C-alpha cells in the first residue's frame, strides 16, 4: 500500500505539486492522468525520491520512504520511463540484470530471473540476451525496459508514460502484456499518462491532476459518470464518454437470452467492440460464445445502448 499524505513540491515560487493526498491499494493499478505541466511526473518521481518533496510524507507499506537512503529505496521500486532509457553499452541481458547486480544477487539467480522475464516477454534469451539495445525494434526495447524494471521482483512499479513512444498496434499489445504480468506478480503499479483512453483501460483507479492539484481520484466508471470538474469532463472528452463506459464492461455481462445469426463474439471482448461490430454490420443482435466456444446467448444494440447511458 502506498500512502501519499499532503505532498507538496515547490521550485522557488512555482508550486508544481500542491498538497496531494491519495492511497493506492496493494496489487492494483493507479493511473495518474493530466496535461503536460500538471505535476503528474513530479508526483511519481517523489515516490522513489528522484525528487524530494518540499512538504508531506509518502509511506510504502507503512514505512516512510525517507527511512532508507534514496538509492536503496530505488532498488526496491521498479521504474520504467518513456523511451525505455536502456543502457546502450550493455547487452539486453545485462540491462535486465541491472538492479539484481546492484543488490548483489548470486549469478545463477540473476541468470534464472533474466531468462524468466525474457521468456515472459516473448524474447528468446539465447537469441536476444547477447544483443545490444540498438539492435532491437522499438516494441522489443520497450519490453526490455519493463523487464529491467521488474527484475528485482519489486512490489511497486512506477511507470512514466511507458508506452508513449510506441505505435498504436504495439501499444495495445504492450498494455495487454502489462495487465497480464500485473495479474501474475501482483505488483502495485502507478502509471503516468496523458491518454485518457489508456487510463480507463489500465486503471483500477484514476487520479486526475491539474495545475499541481489532485482534482479527482476514483474508479474509471465514476470518473466517466461524475466528473468532478469541467476540466475532468474535458479530459474525458464528452463525446467519447458513452464509448469509454462501454469499453470498461465485458460482453459476457451484457448477454441476453436468445439467438442471433452470424459470427459469434467472444464473451471476453469489450462491450464497445460488440457495439462497434453491430453498428458496422448493420445487425440488431450478435451471438456470444464462451471461452470454450459454447454459445452464451446474444447481445443487442438496444441492450448495449442502455448500458452506455449515464449511470444514475
Amino acid at each position, binding site marked *: 500500500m502506498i500512502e501519499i499524505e499532503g505532498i507538496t513540491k515547490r521550485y522557488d515560487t512555482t508550486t508544481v505539486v500542491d498538497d496531494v493526498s491519495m492511497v493506492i491499494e496493494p496489487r492494483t493499478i493507479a493511473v495518474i492522468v493530466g496535461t503536460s505541466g500538471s505535476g503528474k511526473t513530479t508526483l511519481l518521481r517523489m515516490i522513489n525520491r*528522484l525528487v524530494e518533496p518540499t512538504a508531506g510524507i509518502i509511506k510504502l507499506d507503512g514505512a516512510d520512504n525517507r527511512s532508507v537512503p534514496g538509492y536503496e529505496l530505488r532498488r526496491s521500486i521498479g521504474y520504467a520511463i518513456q523511451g525505455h532509457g536502456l543502457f546502450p553499452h550493455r547487452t539486453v541481458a545485462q540491462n535486465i540484470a541491472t538492479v539484481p547486480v546492484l543488490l548483489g544477487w548470486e549469478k545463477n539467480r540473476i541468470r534464472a530471473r533474466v531468462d524468466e522475464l525474457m521468456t515472459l516477454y516473448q524474447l528468446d534469451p539465447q537469441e536476444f540476451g547477447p544483443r545490444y539495445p540498438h539492435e532491437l525494434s522499438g516494441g522489443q526495447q520497450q519490453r526490455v525496459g519493463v523487464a529491467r524494471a521488474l527484475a528485482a521482483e519489486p512490489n511497486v512499479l512506477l511507470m512514466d508514460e511507458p508506452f508513449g513512444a510506441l505505435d498504436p498496434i504495439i501499444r495495445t499489445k504492450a498494455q495487454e502484456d502489462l495487465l497480464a504480468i500485473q495479474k501474475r506478480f501482483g505488483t502495485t503499479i502507478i502509471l503516468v499518462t496523458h491518454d485518457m483512453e489508456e487510463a480507463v483501460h489500465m486503471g483500477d483507479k484514476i487520479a486526475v491532476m491539474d495545475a499541481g492539484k489532485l482534482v479527482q481520484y476514483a474508479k474509471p466508471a465514476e470518473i466517466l459518470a461524475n466528473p468532478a470538474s469541467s476540466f475532468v469532463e474535458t479530459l474525458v472528452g464528452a463525446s467519447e464518454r458513452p464509448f469509454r463506459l462501454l469499453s470498461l464492461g465485458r460482453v459476457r455481462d451484457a448477454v441476453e437470452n436468445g439467438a442471433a445469426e452470424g459470427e459469434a463474439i467472444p464473451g471476453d471482448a469489450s462491450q464497445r467492440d460488440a457495439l462497434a461490430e453491430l453498428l458496422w454490420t448493420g445487425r440488431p443482435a450478435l451471438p456470444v460464445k464462451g471461452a470454450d466456444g459454447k454459445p452464451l446467448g446474444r447481445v443487442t444494440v438496444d441492450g448495449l445502448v442502455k448500458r452506455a447511458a449515464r449511470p444514475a
Partner: protein
Amino acid sequence: MKAWLPLLLRLALVVLLVAFVTSPGWFEPMLKPLTENNAPVIYNQGSLLTLTLLHLRTVLIATVAATIVAVALAILVTRPAGAEFLPLSRSLVNIGQTFPPVAVLALAVPAVGFGEKPTLIALFLYGLLPIFENALTGLTTLPANVVEAARGAGMTGWQRLTKVELPLSAPIILGGIRLSVVISLATATIGSTVAAKTLGEVIIAGLLSNNLAFILQGGLIVAALAVLIYDGLSAIERYAARRMGREAE
C-alpha cells in the same frame, strides 16, 4: 580489393618506419642527394631508434598526465557540487592552450632546469584543453533518459559515473586524447631546444648545419608516428562508438 588498400598502405608505413629507425643505413642512397659537401646523411649524434622511443615516452607521459587531470577536472565540474567551478576551470585550461609551448619552455627552464621536465610541462599544459573540452562535452550530452534510468535503478553517484557516464562518453573522450596526442607528437620536437631527448634533436641539428637530409628524416619519422597513432586511436574510437550503438562521426 579496395577494402584492403588502406590496410595495406598502413602496414607498408609501419614496415617502412620500423626499418628506417632500426637500420637507417639502408636508406642512405635515397637521402644522399639532399646533402652537400660530403656531410653525413644519417643522423650520427645518437641512434634514431632511441630518439624515437624517447620521443614517444615523453608524449606518453605528458598525455597520460593530461588525461588524468583533464578527465578528473571534467568529472568534478559536472557533479552538482563542482558546477560552480566550471567557468573557472574552463578559463584555466584555455590559458594552458593559449600559452605558446615555446613560452612555457622559456618560463619552465629557470624553474626546473634543462632536459625532459620543461618539455613535459609544456606538453601537459598544451594537451589539457582538447581532452577537457571533449570530456565535458561527453559528460554533459549524455542521453537524459539513460541517466534518469540509472538513477531510477538505484545506482549511487559513483556507480552512475563508472558504469554509465564514463563508458558512454568514452568515444568522445578518446577523440580528445587523439587530438592531444597528435599535437604533442609535433610539439615535442621543440623540446630539443631545451635539451630534451626527442626527434626534434635531429631536425634542429639539420637546421644548424643546413643539412636537409637530417631535417627530412626527423620530420618524416614524427609525421609517420602521428599518422599511425591518429589512425589507431580513430579505429578504437569507432569500435567504442559502435558498441554504444552510435554512429561514429
